[in-house]
Every structure is written in structure tokens, then in C-alpha cells.
């Protein structure tokens, strides 16, 4: 379990990093290394150059705009996300998801943006991005791009990022009034990737759901939303028959993979259970806040 040979560079400027990425076809960004290095050690990937971004200034910042939008830089670790009062206040679903990620040692090194760039189908952050309509800010020698989450996760471990692009930050827009949400997941052991998970975000106005996002992870090749179920929730109180129909829509829409940890039927069933639990949690919170 040793990585194949590779070259390593640790530029101290963003431009330096972008230059390396644009001139070396087979290069990869190295952030926390918590996903990339295992892949290399198992010889499932063999990039010829690693561009370590850990010494680039300014990438470790968490910035809150006047309107409450939160921007998380490429070097912000999961642990930093967990500890940030700004994120807890302005992007509570990001804060809520972070503790589910692996174990403390992994969160100390692994980055929030790295997790998004890696796009593991069972990872939490891509689903948070989908549920909250986050925006990816990428950069390269050709300039910056902003990519909405809905267009970013293109397939299994695949994103809209080009090989020469660095994902500089992710921006979570400000929550509208009445927003509530929850993160629920089932994993086999504490800290494992989820068998199935759901990031649920609702907007509730006077007891009625006016907007709904159900972003699942661990149930397909990428994190995915279930618009059929979301539509059934909008206009309802999120309980009783409306919730039952949403659960049915979730089960009818998703086609999860089967592996040693869970069959397709099991994950589909879990997705339904999580819909019930996630929506109930989110609604319970919104009424708590009102009360």
C-alpha cells in the first residue's frame, strides 16, 4: 500500500499553483489528503504531480457577507467549520453536517472544499451544497468561474471542474426567512460514510411549506435531489398524507446501489425513513423557533 511515484510541489502563491495545474496534464490538487492519499496508496489513482495548496495564503478564510452569505475557502478544515460561530449562525446545515464526517483526526486535516471537489457520493457536503443552492467558485489561469451546485456534481467522483481548475471556495447563500432544515443519516458505525443520508431544507411560512429541498447522499452515483418529493411537500404542512406521498415519491425515484453494507431495497427503504425523520425534524425546529 505505497503510492506509485509522483512529483510534489508546494507553491506559496495562488498563481504559482494555477500555473502548475495548467502546465502539467496529470496533476492533482492536494488539500487535506484524506481522500486523495488513500486512493493513491491503494493504487487506484496515479497522478504524476501533486500540487499541495496548504501554503497558499487567504484560502483558509471564512467570510460572511452583509446579507449573511457564507464563503468557505479551500483550506478551511471540517474541524474549523464545526468550530465557526459564523457558520453555525448563517449556514446551520453546513455546521450540522460537519460532525458526521469521519472522525476527529480526519476532520482536522480534511477540507470542506476538498470534500466537494472529491464529490464522493456518500459524502455529506455535496448534499448540503445541493440542498442550499450553494455556488462553487473555481479559478484557473483562464480566470474565475462560478458554478451552481445543481450543475457541479456530474457523476461518480466527477464534477464540472476542469483539470486545470482549483476550487477556491464555496459560497452558501443567505437563508430566507422561515428557513429550517435538518441533516439525518444512518451509518453502520460511528464515523462511517452514510448508508443513506438526507439534507432537508424547508421554508415554512405560517405552518405551510413554501419551498423544499431534499438532497440525498449515499444512494446513487452522486448526491441528488428528489424534485418529485419536494413538489409534494410544497403547499403542505409536511405531515400526514402529504409526508406519506413524499416518502413514496422518494422510494419510487431513487435507485440506490447494493453492496456488502446494504442492498438496494434497504437503502431505498432507508431513504423513505430519512424523509420522514428529516422533514419531521425540520418542522419541529421551525415551530420551536417560532414558539
Amino acid at each position, binding site marked *: *500500500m*505505497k*503510492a*506509485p*511515484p509522483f512529483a510534489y510541489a508546494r507553491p506559496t502563491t495562488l498563481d504559482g499553483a494555477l500555473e502548475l495545474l495548467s502546465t502539467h496534464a496529470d496533476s492533482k490538487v492536494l488539500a487535506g489528503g484524506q481522500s486523495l492519499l488513500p486512493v493513491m496508496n*491503494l*493504487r487506484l489513482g496515479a497522478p504524476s504531480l501533486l500540487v499541495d495548496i496548504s501554503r497558499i495564503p487567504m484560502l483558509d478564510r471564512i467570510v460572511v457577507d452583509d446579507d449573511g452569505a457564507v464563503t468557505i475557502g479551500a483550506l478551511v478544515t471540517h474541524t474549523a467549520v464545526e468550530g465557526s460561530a459564523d457558520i453555525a449562525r448563517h449556514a446551520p446545515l453546513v455546521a450540522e453536517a460537519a460532525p458526521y464526517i469521519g472522525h476527529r483526526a480526519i476532520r482536522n486535516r480534511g477540507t470542506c472544499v476538498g470534500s466537494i471537489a472529491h464529490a464522493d457520493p456518500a459524502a455529506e457536503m455535496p448534499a448540503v451544497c445541493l440542498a442550499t443552492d450553494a455556488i462553487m467558485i473555481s479559478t484557473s489561469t483562464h480566470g474565475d468561474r462560478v458554478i451552481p451546485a445543481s450543475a457541479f456534481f456530474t457523476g461518480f467522483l466527477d464534477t464540472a471542474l476542469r483539470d486545470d481548475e482549483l476550487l477556491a471556495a464555496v459560497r452558501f447563500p443567505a437563508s430566507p426567512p422561515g428557513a429550517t432544515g435538518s441533516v439525518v443519516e*444512518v451509518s*453502520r*458505525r*460511528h*464515523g*462511517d*460514510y452514510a*448508508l443513506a443520508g438526507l439534507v432537508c431544507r424547508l421554508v415554512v411560512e405560517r405552518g405551510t411549506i413554501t419551498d423544499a429541498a431534499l438532497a440525498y447522499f449515499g444512494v446513487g452515483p452522486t448526491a441528488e435531489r428528489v424534485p418529485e418529493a419536494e413538489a409534494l411537500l410544497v403547499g403542505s404542512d409536511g405531515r400526514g398524507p402529504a409526508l406519506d406521498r413524499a416518502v413514496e415519491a422518494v422510494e419510487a425515484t431513487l435507485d440506490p446501489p*447494493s*453492496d*456488502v*453494507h*446494504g*442492498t*438496494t*431495497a*434497504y437503502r431505498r*427503504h*432507508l431513504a423513505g*425513513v430519512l424523509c420522514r425523520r428529516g422533514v419531521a425534524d425540520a418542522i419541529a425546529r421551525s415551530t420551536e423557533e417560532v414558539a
Partner: protein
Amino acid sequence: MTSPETHHTGTFDTATQGSGLGAFTGTSVKRVEDHRLLVGDGRYVADVVPPGCLHAAFVRSPFPHARLTGIDTSEATRLPGVVSVITGSDIEELTNPFLPFLALPGLYTPLYHSLSSERVRFVGDPVALVVASSRAVAEDAAELVDVTYEVLDGIGTIDRALDPESEPIWPRAKNNLLYDRTTDHGDVEGVFADADHVFTETFRCPRQSNQPMETRGILVEVDSVTGAVSVRAATQAPHMLRWQIAAYARKESGPQSIRSFLTNPERRGAFLAAAKAFVGDKGEALQSSDSTAMQHQLKTEPRTALQMVRTGAQLLGRDDYPHVDADDIGGGFGAKGSVAREEIAVAAAALAIGRSIQWIEDRMENLMDGGQAREEELTLSIACDADGTVRGLDVDLVLDQGAYPGNPVGAPITVRIMEVMQPGAYRFEAFRQRSRIVATNKGKYVAYRGPWANETWARERMINVVARRLGLSQTEIRRKNMYGDEDWPAAMLTGPALDVTCSVRKTLERAEELADLDRLDALRADAVSRGKRLGIGFASYHEAAPGPPDYFEHVNPGTSALLDQPATASVSVDGTIQIWTSQMPHGQSHETTYAQLAADQLGVAIEDIELVYGDTSRAPFDLLGTGGSRGGPVGGGAVRKVGRHLRSVVVAKAADMLEASVDDVTIERGNIHVAGVPARGLTYAEVAARVVADGETVDGRDGTYAFSVDDTYTSAGDGGWSVATHVCWVEVDVETGIVEIPRYLVVEDCGPIINPAIVDGQVRGGVAQGIGAVLYERAAYDEQANPQASTYMDYLIPTATEIPRIEVDHMETLSPGENDHRGVGEGGMIGAPAAITNAIEDAIGVTVNDQHLPPYRILELMGIIRPD
């Protein structure tokens, strides 16, 4: 949920000054090993890298079953840093094949080499060994070795292996059924015809893997001047490894070996003397051993005889056996009691190249080839009367040994122990067992902590099935049918004697008292109110730790002779004290418990005792090392015996010096004095100095000592059974299938305890592995035998957050024996799977036939989701 406090025998006594006989034994003195290991001063095989050492990596088969049609190493050999690439055909030139060990009548055991050359039999089968300047380079080169395969049908399940048309993994065996034998005890037909009911169920246990923190590893050092070979390894049995390297890692011509034996009168004389002594000692045991096993083997594999003679002659003809040293070991659970093919290949490479080589297994290799266990299918029929009296037991066992046999301990001995132990502590009138061993294209089956545990699992499951069908409670049916004190002396239907140490029923009764059964209904209702189902499961067993004196004669006649335990005790010329054991500690705390036993004999402090082990030039000879719950009873018995012996010779000398009678001399806190006159005492150093002055020193194991005594301990007459009842409470989430364990109770009886804290640790560790077996760990393969769990993403080991508090209650039944500590290392693992699955069945109300119950399987059983 509240629960009774853990009950400890003995006190937490951290005092380290011995006040005389019996001061330490029975107390929870702190582990001597802890400081060294916790501050990082442990020395594991990977920590030792001599200058110029080369590193090894294996080229392994990516296919479960294939013919190897070509292998091209040229590109790999050209890679800078690569020293050598050794293939399977090279290894046939360099080494001897592995030989059968513990053959059973009718069993086919293949002859095979450490690397495969013509056929690969599982994913991970090593076909070449790359030796290079670093492990990374070796892995790079391994990728460049070009192997061509012709893929064959992979046999991934017991059903496929039993199909007589399945592609034979070992062509000489004709098919994949390697062993099939049925034994009757009592009038099986009669009892089954006469009983009111016969109930039958099939129980399946999928493959698990022994997962020590430290993987396997070996360093073979070759002295560049003398060519002498010394080995460091993570092994539970250093002497076994030494002999096997001597036997297999180099091939010598038969005539050459015989000539060198015959021309060396010293060696010849020593051999004949040893042989005479061995036969003299064990004549009876040897006579009872059965030769039909070997006859069958020779019929199916005639080359066996030739290879045995050749290898035997080689062992006789050599006096340059390698020196093996094992230091700290990060666990083994039985897997490191095997000598690995990789170890022989690395040793052969080092000998051929003449340079030191280290191989440290990585986790992926370990999960594929480090040792797997417990894949068994058992169909049990119980004949019983309407009142719940169990009368007859009929068992059909199939064990999946994987591709290669465990070496030396594996499926055959496990099958025998399973059969002997299968009836448990129940008064059956008749018992039949059919035992089969099949080969599949999977990693090899090895001994794993309580290797026979599935006899307990299947029996204790079936007892619950019978109870449910008859409307009896789990405890009622057990109490009614178990042997108890009124029955002694008794014997199991399979032979071994039962005595007062088989106190299973007492542990059951104690467990019932502690289990607050009157609160069960309230607990169930509370669980339902939270969307859960609560269940409770009992399981009871007795295990041979070490078993009655006749035990091994019933398992495999003739093997008792292997089980004796030598030990040495010495006092150096400077007065320090050593205990020399053939046990090989790898997590069992021998340094602490043996120091407790010895310090009590010798009247000194724990830290005055140095335990010597692991180094074959110093540790007494014993092929088995540590395993089989023998450390406490047999290894400990040897320490006590040799300690008492040493005390007597020291006291004799001191009595001379004190001009007193030996009967009046006592030892307290290292002060050897006439009882009542401590002021005029002597230290060990003073006595040793006088021995030196008087010219009375003796030759000890590796030098000159003031005193040195050797003893051999045979378990005959001592020991007996170690027993327990486990009770598990589970809560099943009916929506997710997730199982939680709100309470777990073990009532165990291993006789008088040496160190309660260590016993608790052994029990809890075993239970944790049992929890792993049922809820998390599965060495999964698909139908074609492709492994599905070759990293820790898929092979899930429970962590601290998954293991509940485990209450341990001790009972300490005395036996008539002298050294009465009974083994406790394996029991936790033996009882746990049965208690947990019984609890799950109780919770969900559906018969549970699988041992492994991940959340999806629970929902399938409950009918909530459909099986894929």
C-alpha cells in the same frame, strides 16, 4: 437502564512489595507491559530495519481461480532498485513443499509451495516475490510483473463446493469435498424414533477474519560474513517458525542430508537419545494414534511420503537452524500461530540472495490472506420430549477451509474440537455428527479465538428454537437439561470427563439472578414506545481450558504429547531472578501474571521477576507457543511449578548459610530468613554470591547461574473446564434495522483468578469480537469468490463507540487440581454470538439462522424489505 455493578474478586492492589506467599495472585496488579507499550517503547518487527535491509512485496493473483500460463519478470527486474524477482517455479527449485500436519482419517491435504506456479486458488494467492531497495519500489515492480492467466470457475460458496461437478481446486482430491466423516455416540436412531418431537434448523456463519492491530511481518537477517540466519517475526510460536524455516525454506538433497546426519556422531547420538526419551514418555499416547489418516493421505497424494522423508532428513542433517526472535506483537487472535507461506518465501529469498529482507504485510494483504475463520454451516436436529427434555442431537457440519490449509493449525483440528464440544453441557442420550470440510477459492481458514465457537453458537441457537416451539423460557430449558453438581463424575457423550469445574448451570443460575428478569416486560414496553423492539438472549458453554486430562485424546489421539509445557527458573550470579517460558505473549499480559505467580512462590516483588520469552535460543522448546487458552492453566502451571522448585534450592542454600533447617526458612519481601528472625536475613544477591564463592554455579540456559532449574508441566490432573453464561439485551430499531446493546452481562467461572482486571479485559475483548461477528465484521466474497471486503471501508471492526459496557461477574469454583487457574482468553468470543443472536430473535420474533446480521438483514428477516 440501571444494572448491577461489576463484581470483582480480589481487590485492586497496586502494591508491588511481596509480603510472602500468595500476596499477588488474585489481585489486580497493574500490567507490567503497559508503560513500555504506551510510551512507544515497544519493539515490533517493523521497528527493526538493519542497515542494507531489502524489502519484499508479493505479486498476487487478481483471480479467484485460474491456470497460470505465463509469467514475465523482465520488465520488473529492470526497474532501478529491484534486486530479485522470484517466481513460483523458482521457489519449487529452492524450497520444500508444506507437509500435512494433524492429518485426519479420510482428509486430503495438498502439498503446495509458498508461491504458486501452475494454478492460483484465491484472490491474493502469491505468484512472485519482488525484493527491492524499498517497499515502494517493490510494489512498483510487482505491478510490472506480467502474469497471464486462464480463468477458471471460482468456487465462492459451500453449496458450489459441495457440487461434485464443481471445478476441483485440488485436482488430486477429485472434487472439493476434502473430508467427510460421520460418528455416532449412543443409539441415535432409537432416540430419534422414540422422542416426542424432532426439530431441525440450519445455521450459517459467514467468514470472519482475525484482525490484529499489527499485520503479519518478518525480517530475515543474513549475516554477510557467516551466512547465519536470524529471524524476527510477529509469531505466536517462535519455535514452530524456526522449525518450519529449517524444514522448508531451503531444499537440500536427501542423500546429502542423510550423509551429514550419519557423519556427525554427536548429532546422531543426541537424536537417538531424544527419540528414546520421547517414546519412553509418550509411548501410550503414541500407540493410541491412528494411522489410517496417513494411509489415506498417501493414497491420494503419494508424493507425501517422499517429501516427508526428504524434509525429515534435512531437519536431522542440519545444525544451522535459524535463530528466531519475537518481541512485542500487536495481537494475533490465532492467525499468527500459523506459519505463513510468505514467511517461507521471504526466508528462501534471503537465503538465495544472501541479504537481509523485511516483509511487512499491508492491511489489504492481511484481509485477503492474513487468516480467515468460522465459515461454517450447521444443520442441527434435536429430538426432545414434550416436557422439554432434550434427548438426541444430530449435527451436519460443513466447514469452508478456503483454498489452502491452515499451517499447522486449521480446519481439521477445528472440526474435531467442534465435534467433541458440540453436545455442550446438556444431558443428551445420543449424538451423531457428520463433519465435512470443503475447499473454496477463498483465503485460508485459521484458528481464531475460540476456533470451535460455532458449535456453541449453533447449539445455543437451537436450544432457543426448541424452547420457543415448546413454549418454554430460554433459562427453563437450559436448567432442565444441563449437567449439575448432582451428576459428577460424568462424561460428555463424546468422551471428555465432566467434573465440578463444569459449573455451567451455576453460572446460568447466577445470571438469572443478576438479569432483573422481572423488569423485562417494562423494558419491552418502553422500547416499543420508542419505535424499538427489545429482546434478551442467554447462552451458556463450557470450554476446554485446558480441559480434563483425557480431553485431547478424544479430539485427536496422540496429540496430548504436544501439549506439555516446559519452564525454567534461574537466579543470576548477581541475584536477579528470571522465569523462562515457551509461551509467546501477544496481548495476554503474561509478563504480569507470570510475575505474580512467580513472585508469590519466591517471596519477592513483581518487578524482581524478569520474564524471558520469544527468543528460540533462550525460550524453552515448545512448538505451540501461545494458543488454546493454555497460558493461564498450563503455562502458569509450569511457572508455579518451576518457581516452587527454585525456591526450594535457594532455601536449601540459605538454610546452610543460616545454619538452620530448611523447614524453618521463609522468604518475605526478598528477605530469606528463619521464621520470626527477619533481622538476620539474607538477600537473593547474598545467597548467589555465596554460591559463586563456593564454586557451585550451574550452567543455565544461556550462561552461568547461581541457580537454574527446569521443569515440565503436564496438565494431567489439573485444570478442567472454563465456563460462562452470557446475557445480552438488544434494542432493534424497526425502521432502520440498527441493533443497539443496552446491556451485556457475563457470568464466568475460570477458577481462582490470577488477576481480575486482566480477566475482565480478556472477557470484554472477546465479547467485543463477538459483537463484531454478528453486527459488523464479514470477510465477504461473491459467488465466484471475489473478495468484497479487502479494506477497512468494507471490513468493519467495532470501535469503542459500538461496544457497550460489559458487566463481568466472577465465580471461582475450585477443582481438585493443584494449579487451578483455568484459561479465559477465548470464552468471551465463544459465548457472545449466541447470546446476541438469541436476543435479536427474541426481539424480532423471527427465527434467526444467520450469525451475521447487518441492518439490512434484520429488516429482511422482519419482512420489512424484500431480499435482493
